[in-house]
């Protein structure tokens, strides 16, 4: 059994890959997807990759050559940075290196991406914005509208209301941070007129398929997370700040002491004076400590191994379910890391297709541990 899909890709025979490329791919389209503008058909999909301040035109060219179809980014303009810093961010990234830092640099990127017939979306997916922020936000979205960015990725209902009231023409993409876990939530956001929904990280392939199948026509576009940074917690209801402190709350190492719970019944009048000992027997402590160790590994996969969470083996199932857009979480990554990520993802996808991997239906599995996979459920 192979340890990970990346190992599979890296160990695969290069000559075989070349044969596949000759069969389905081109230099600009190494995994053989349909070109933009062509009719949508089964197997058509798009990779969405992050971009930020220091990306030059040649980086964009390299990313597209490696398989990027769409770009997403965030911006922290100077007036925002001066007032709120990066810790209270315009989007869900709290560090300087994850953003565009001026309108000029973002405008150059928009022009570059459009000149290559690709699209670029800007994130405004912070959990919330307070009333005093709106003057800066409105100024920002109007500048971006003039730049003709292709979409705003949003999650806060108040912001969506404000954008609609302002008559902003930029299409809205509902962020994974908005928490569309069911069709009623989808219908709620659809009332505002949306182009796309990014489904949250914590849905199974079956649940994604169910949401898309039940969605009334005309359906919006559906995007899902494919690579990297699978939050341990549901990001739409996760409240600790990522700012101000090294490492996220969820990545911290904790000593976790397990106790038996008392129940409300233990406090009922007839049992009032009964003492309670919360100690847990050794036979329970052993699986608990083992569970804690595994959980630490789950939340810190990237830092321990250099490899992150992957969902490539589910791409075909997701496409069959109606997903067309796949996010490779990568804001703040170096150009080399992102190019490598795209190429690896393409290679793994080819490997999966070569083996006709159907993880939900087959006992054969590329990856040893379920929690390193976005979409594998036991």
């Amino acid at each position, binding site marked *: 059994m192979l340890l990970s899909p990346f190992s599979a890709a890296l160990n695969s025979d290069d000559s075989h890959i070349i044969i596949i490329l000759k069969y389905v791919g081109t230099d600009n389209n190494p995994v053989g997807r349909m070109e933009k503008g062509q009719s949508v058909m089964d197997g058509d999909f798009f990779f969405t990759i992050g971009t930020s301040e220091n990306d030059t035109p040649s980086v964009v060219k390299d990313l597209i050559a490696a398989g990027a179809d769409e770009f997403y980014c965030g911006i922290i303009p100077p007036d925002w940075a001066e*007032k*709120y810093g990066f810790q*209270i961010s315009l989007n869900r990234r709290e560090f300087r290196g994850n953003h565009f830092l001026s309108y000029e640099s973002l405008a150059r990127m928009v022009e570059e991406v459009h000149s290559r017939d690709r699209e670029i979306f800007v994130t405004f997916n912070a959990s*919330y914005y307070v*009333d*005093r*922020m709106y003057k800066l936000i409105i100024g920002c979205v109007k500048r971006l509208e003039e730049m003709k960015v292709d979409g705003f990725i949003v999650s*806060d*209902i*108040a912001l969506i*209301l404000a954008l609609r009231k302002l008559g902003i023409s930029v299409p809205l993409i509902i962020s994974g941070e908005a*928490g*569309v*876990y*069911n*069709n*009623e939530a*989808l219908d*709620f956001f659809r009332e505002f007129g949306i182009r796309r929904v990014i489904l949250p990280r*914590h849905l*199974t392939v079956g649940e994604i398929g169910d*949401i898309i199948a039940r969605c009334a026509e005309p359906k919006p576009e559906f995007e899902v997370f494919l690579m990297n940074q699978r939050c*341990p*917690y*549901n990001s*739409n*209801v*996760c*409240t*600790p*700040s990522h700012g101000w402190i090294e490492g996220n*709350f969820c990545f*911290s190492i*904790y*000593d*976790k*002491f*397990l106790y*038996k*719970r*008392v129940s*409300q*019944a233990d*406090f*009922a*009048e007839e049992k*009032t*004076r009964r*003492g*309670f*000992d*919360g100690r847990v027997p050794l036979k329970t402590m052993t*699986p*608990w400590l083992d569970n804690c160790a*595994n959980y630490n590994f*789950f939340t810190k996969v990237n830092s321990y191994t250099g490899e992150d969470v992957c969902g490539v083996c589910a791409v075909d199932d997701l496409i069959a379910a109606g997903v067309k857009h796949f996010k490779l979480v990568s804001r703040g990554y170096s150009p080399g890391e992102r190019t490598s990520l795209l190429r690896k993802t393409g290679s793994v996808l080819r490997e999966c297709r070569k083996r006709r991997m159907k993880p939900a239906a087959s006992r054969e599995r590329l990856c040893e541990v*379920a*929690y390193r996979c976005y979409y594998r*459920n*036991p």
Partner: protein
Amino acid sequence: MELALHYQGGMTGGMLNLKRFERRLSHRRDKDSLFRQGIVDSTGETYAGKLLALDVTEANRIYFGSEFCEKRIPGKKELKEVLRFCDNNNLGFTLLTPLVTNAGMNSVRRLLDVLAAKRTTAEIVVNDPGVFHVVRRDRGEFEIVWGRLMSHLKTMPRFAREWPLNFAAKADEERQTGALRLNAEQIYALRNSSLSVGLFQKFIRKEGVRRLEFDPLPQGMSAPAKEGSFRLSLHYPWVYITSSRICEMGAMGLDRDEKFTPGGECGFECRRYIAQWDLAAPRASDRIFNVGNTVFMICGLSREGLVKYAASCRIDRVVFSFLPPF
């Protein structure tokens, strides 16, 4: 000030009286285990006792349901029993609902049907935009409560040591060392949320929201709306931090290969266990607990602090849960 109790089964009418309940707790000899469960503070004082400083003694409302996990949504039979308990004790009723998938939404709908058949008035706490969508459409006479998961305020558990109202002072002090840089705008942003936006207030009010719910926060909180436009609840003392469909505790009984998948199987370990997390960080809360798929910290306010906090935010209801609200 109104007092509501979070009901988790096994409750008797006697527990509705805070004074009697506090007296009973204070007689118990197992203070150490009560401390480990987050029921008393390090001095042995009960949180129920601290609440008495708010001049509330008798609960007049029950909160029941699941706030964090769709697997813990109660059945129709349980709901009917609790409604009977409320009727017998002349109590108001509030149904808690969690974040749900399509499967969980079916369970919520079943409860709403029972509620519609049995009650003419009730409150429904929404913590999912989809549940909000359903309830606003079919709510009848029910009032919608904007749940604490929907307020999105930052809880900052790693800056909780000297909370709640001295966060700004702490920031000023830290600014001297350069470790933590907060200005007035940042503090305002941390003490408020989307609920400060007039357009949004108008929208949710039009859709039937009458009450907003919050946790006591380390950094303090500003009252989010003009007086009279919404009523405000404070959950005490269990402060919500984060939650997940990937349940750490629920994976205890699973093989490594099966652990930590969304909505994965579990043995309802959350009914039996509670875990205390010890994070060796000087400013972090030392009272962080994990039950099932959710992480809480205990509000460390003194009696005086609690009174001051509630008054500063125009809180008119405390939702008390002496056990984790899970």
